[in-house]
């Protein structure tokens, strides 16, 4: 088997307070692998550690957060051990990220063309006419009409969908091998969301890049991803190929997430709801963090943290229910 493009091995990212008295385990032992050209969906609620995981891969964590353990191997190299200088060469050129709100990720004072040019200048040392040509090509690639005009305009002159496509163009400008998309469509309308998702799929087909899709929407996962990791309270509670997750979810949380979603094509009388609130990461319950809300919890779940069990081919879950099998 060939080497995976990205391999997370027991990644742990903690937030530590100034005096070191309070520790929040935002990411606690997350492992997964991603091959070239694959799309992985990371699903979870707010505060489950999805975004911190992706920021850890890029090493763009806020000052209070620290990677305290584990390895992130990207194309065979451990990103955790790299210096800041070396990381700068990876970011924007090998790994790029698209954030949720395109208005926040674009600088309002620079033209679209300037902003797409920046990574190309820095990483690819492009200048002059070839740079302009490349910018136009990228804008056409994300289906922006009349790129010659648009590249001289500012972000406020574009609609939300166009801005997000511009961010996409910046993301793929240096032909990265991995694109991390953090809830890229939450601020968009449904029809624009559908346009954007099909655009991302097209780009992926053309360039064979790997993607990590961070979302809380199982529908996006169903549409876009090859495999899925479900996060809860900083841990990956289940990972499996996408069809397995939807047909045979192993973890009660995954099952509940799927059942809590109203269906478009069939009528449901009542939704299955997960009682209670997502846990406070600074004050996790002992044992499995999902146990207080889990309908299938046993005594042991409240006492011991479950390790990862193998359920099937490429299908792992952290749940005591699978120990006996």
């Amino acid at each position: 088997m060939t080497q995976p493009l990205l391999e997370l091995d027991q990644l742990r990212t903690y937030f530590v307070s100034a005096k070191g008295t309070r520790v929040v385990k935002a990411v606690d032992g997350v492992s997964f692998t991603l091959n070239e050209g694959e799309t992985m969906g990371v699903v979870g609620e707010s505060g489950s550690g999805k975004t911190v995981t992706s920021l850890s891969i890029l090493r763009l964590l806020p000052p209070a957060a620290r990677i305290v353990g584990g390895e992130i191997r990207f194309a065979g190299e451990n990103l955790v051990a790299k210096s800041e200088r070396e990381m700068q060469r990876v970011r924007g050129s090998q790994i790029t990220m698209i954030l949720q709100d395109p208005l926040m990720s674009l600088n309002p004072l620079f033209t679209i063309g300037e902003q797409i040019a920046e990574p190309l200048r820095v990483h690819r040392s492009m200048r002059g006419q070839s740079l302009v040509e490349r910018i136009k090509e990228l804008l056409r690639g994300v289906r922006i009409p009349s790129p010659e005009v648009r590249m001289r305009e500012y972000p406020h002159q574009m609609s939300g969908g166009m801005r997000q496509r511009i961010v996409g163009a910046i993301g793929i400008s240096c032909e990265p091998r991995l694109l991390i998309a953090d809830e890229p469509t939450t601020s968009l309308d449904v029809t624009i969301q559908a346009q954007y998702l099909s655009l991302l799929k097209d780009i992926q087909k053309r360039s064979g890049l790997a993607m990590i899709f961070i979302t809380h929407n199982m529908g996006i996962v169903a549409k876009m991803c090859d495999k899925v990791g479900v996060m809860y309270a900083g841990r990956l509670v289940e990972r499996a190929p996408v069809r397995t997750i939807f047909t045979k979810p192993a973890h009660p949380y995954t099952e509940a997430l799927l059942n809590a979603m109203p269906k478009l094509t069939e009528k449901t009388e009542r939704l299955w709801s997960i009682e209670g609130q997502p846990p406070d990461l600074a004050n996790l319950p002992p044992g499995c963090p999902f146990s207080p809300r889990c309908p299938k919890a046993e005594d042991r779940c409240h006492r011991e943290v479950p390790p990862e069990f193998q359920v099937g081919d490429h299908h792992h879950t952290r749940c005591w229910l699978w120990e006996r099998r």
Partner: protein
Amino acid sequence: MSETLLELRDLKKYFPVTKGIIFQKPVGWVKAVDGVSYAIGAGETLGLVGESGCGKTTTSKLILMLEKPTGGTIVFRGQDIQALQGDGLKTYRRNVQAVFQDPFSSLNPRIRVGDIIAEPLVVNDAPPKAEVKARVRELLHLVGLNPSAEYLFPHEFSGGQRQRIAIARALSLNPSLIVLDEPVSALDVSIRAQIMNLLQDLQQQFGLSYLLIAHDLAAVLHLSTNIAVMYLGKLVEFGTSDDLRYKPLHPYTQALFSAALPSHPDEQREELILSGEVPSPLNPPSGCRFHPRCPFAKSVCSEVEPVLKTAAGGHQVACHLY
């Protein structure tokens, strides 16, 4: 169909676009809501769907009397609400309440939860303190919160709990209609189902009517009795949620369905991805407003504006294809 509670008749709201700072000259009109008619029955939920800028929120503001309509009427229990005065107006206002999208900005952070819920009561009836307190307790219980929540501030609650507080406040005056403007879209997935179930329970218990505004089509279908689809201020389709679920007629509705996310990776659906974006309401396209994006557009579509036609079972559609 049950008894009609609220009816919109050819409702219009135009916003002027002005030029100049002191002597403002109107140079155009944004037709945010342009001749919309539909009815909400007692105990029913009407779902209002459409993209941003289609006039959903303006419609709800008109119903809440936060904006004055440019034309048309809103009829509540047989009475035109613009003609209401004094007690009649007061009764209307207490009968129509609202729950908004973002429970972080719709609750005053400096007021205790008990007072937030009691405020409508105190303002309207000013009952004795003990009664207010008992009612607040009752409401907290209804929405599934602990009675001790009364003494806490909004920041001490999570998003889902705050939305419960907002619902309790809306319920405090025993309204007959609640306008729900994106009530679950700011919430986490696992919490959404809780709130949707709560809304359904309360509807059954009190025979409430809801006007539900949301862009998550699956959620709207799940909660609604009837659904109205809007595009650029116009009503393009109206029908029961089953009508729309199983046979959406208007190409725009079909496109919305096709754009909605699948619930299973193997789910096969006709791909009907719309090109382009919603045109500016300042200068809407001639004829059918949807024709520049419509895959089935004919020449007549750009010339003549389609009228709302009624098909079998009260299913209405405004499209030249039918």
